[in-house]
């Protein structure tokens, strides 16, 4: 439709519990921002929220988000994305 812009198409790669939870290791998402990517994942399965955010709604410590190989520490969810961006989501999956 005239005047509407198509959101950038980005590739999201998932690891560990995120991959198991969503049943796929990679997906294509149309998203303007990093926040849109996360929202898109949560919309697929609500339990994903718990893997990314803690009980206070903050991103889990040591859950790392990468955009085009650069770690976002801390991630800015309002950050604009571009077509072809590759996003890695690596949840905290270690301890002792």
């Amino acid at each position: 439709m005239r005047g509407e812009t198509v959101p950038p198409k980005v590739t999201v790669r998932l690891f560990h519990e995120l991959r198991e939870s969503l049943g796929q290791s990679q997906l294509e998402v149309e998203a303007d921002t990093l926040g849109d990517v996360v929202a898109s994942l949560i919309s697929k399965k609500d339990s994903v929220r718990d893997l990314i955010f803690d009980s206070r709604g903050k991103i889990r410590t040591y859950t790392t988000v990468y955009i085009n190989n650069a770690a976002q520490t801390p991630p800015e969810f309002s950050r604009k994305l571009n077509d072809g961006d590759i996003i890695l989501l690596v949840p905290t999956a270690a301890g002792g």
Partner: protein
Amino acid sequence: MLYAKVKRSKYPHALIKSIDTKRAETAPGVVAVLTYKDVPATNGFGILIPDQPVLCWEKVRYMGDAVAVVAAETPEAAEEATNLVEVEYSPLPVISEPLEAMKHDAPKVHEKGNILRHSRVTVGNVDEAFRNAAFVVENTYRTGRQMHMYLETEAGVGMLDENGKLVLYSGGQSPYRDQMQISRALGIKAEDIRVISTPVGGAFGGKEENTVQIHLALLVTKTKRPVKMVWSREESGSAGMKRHPMVVTMKTAADQEGRLVANQVRILADTGAYASLGPTVLDVAIENSCGPYRIPNVDIDAYSVYTNNGVAGAFRGFGSPQVNFALESNIDILAEKLHIDRLEIRKKNVVRKGDTGPLGQKLQDSVGIYETLQKAESSDLWNNREKYKAQTSAPWCKRGIAVSTAVKGFGFGALPDFAAASIQITPTGKFVVGVSCPEIGQGAITAYAQIAAEALHCDIADVYIASADSGLAPDSGTSSASMGLVRGGNAILTTAPKMNELLLETASKIIADQKADLEFQESQIISKRNPKKTVNYIDIAQYLYNSSSETRIVAGYNVPRADKPVEGSIEIPHLAYMYGTAIALVEVDTLTGSTKVLKFFLSTDSGKMINPQSYTGQCEGAIVQGLGFALTEETQINEGITKTNNFTTYIIPTICDVPEIQIDPVETYEKVGPFGAKGLGEIGIIPVGSAVANAIYDATGERVFTLPATPERVYKAMNERRNSATKSNR
């Protein structure tokens, strides 16, 4: 096959001014020389924080840092080529003391500063409790930088398969974690990387982090040839993981009846040059610093700081043996002040089922610490302690005996964790069970086979465990945190009922009977109404294969966890805990200060024993490794340079040092574990250092505040008293 070697840093802390690989590239037999320019994606690794460069580009932070990696036709050519890589450095001041590292004007190991993590956990009011306490003791304890010293060093082989997919064999503790780290560094999809964590005799946490994997992956994708890398013993010693040395200042108070009322703890952990699992090691140290005791007021302030002293990370006990040494020493001192038996003071204070732990943990299920103390109390060693103490081997030797307790959570505490398994029936009616938690010498494969056989109603010989292969098994998590049995076992028990359902459905079709009327017998299904109607697993498998039906089931489960982390922590508390009590009988040679452990007793509550032989092996191994921590093992690093990196200079216990060991388990039922089992791997090592140290005090009347209790330290402790006694007599 190509052979790979790593060009490591010449300095513990330096800026890299230039790297010249020309001479190395043209050397005979050399096929590839890679530097930071050849890392396609994220040039960093680390399970929690990828702050360790795959190949350094502007700075080195310890002498194990990798600057280049070489592949050549022979190991000798690869080694020679690393010498030909020319690196120009600008040395920086070396940070070797954690306290120095914390100063605001200290040179920075990392741009963000030298404090990796600071946590403060408080419950109640320690100041008021100290004011009202009958006795208060405060001491500072130090522990050494223990090395894992597995007999197999870090090693692996990588190659491309016929489809060009990367395949990596290495002795890691989780193929999927390794896969993630390779994927992140090389920028290739995880499923295009197959990682097989080959069984190894020992890992102890030291192979949880990336070691050879990413370098091999880089070289294989570059050369398109199989590449092998085996770290030398010295390389393992200087570049490999270590236990965090800690300085623990602990102030513990009790009331007149010997009830613990307060514990104030200050922990300073040296995490070395990179984070690895340092943040969660600190969490577990915090959690275990109050032991398995009811203590209503606690204040724990803990730091983990960067230095140029190697890299510290996961090591069996994960921060617990260090703080246990401090706590159990303080409790023995309190018992003496209160004139209470050392075992009694522990019985008086340990948590029981239904209690709230010192950090607010709700201890609702199996809590067998009191029972382990009862086992200790009734042991031959404790009952006859005076007899054993009197049997010294020479007039100048003194014997002592001491008891110590321990606790540790198993698993990742409050963090999310997931484990899956697969089960496939073969055409011959047997089962291939895919679990990705590797066999690292703990007997996992045997235990998984036992659990699967039980759940699938078949003989254990009919179960093949496809272990730790990301190409064959789904992600079952890691073999770490004393959790391999629980994760993998529960994943099997989640998957097996679905396979059983498939077997019943198929049998129902073959026998023409209702599923509800069928039941399992050994490797067959029979009709309850007509026991002559049976079908065995071979016929069921044949039916499935002939009808091209699904023969493989994959299922997983979310590992139960604590509701939320303790304020100020990431991981703790845990949902459930292992417990243990140890007794050590030692003999100290007062002329040399050398200590020999003669007898050792250990009772653990590890839930239901799945395999008694594995249980005994784990306990005995943990005790012997703990003896190294207690008496001999300490990596000497001087100004960032490792001085003890082989078996000649770094002394681990040998068979000559192994005491007579008695193991007496307490079996409880833990509902989060398979068949009631809990973790096991770590609990045995935790009380060893403190039991030995307290026994040295019992023998000599002198307390060691630093482990390992080397002959020099014990002799010095005894000599200081002699000197002061001599002076006072003048």
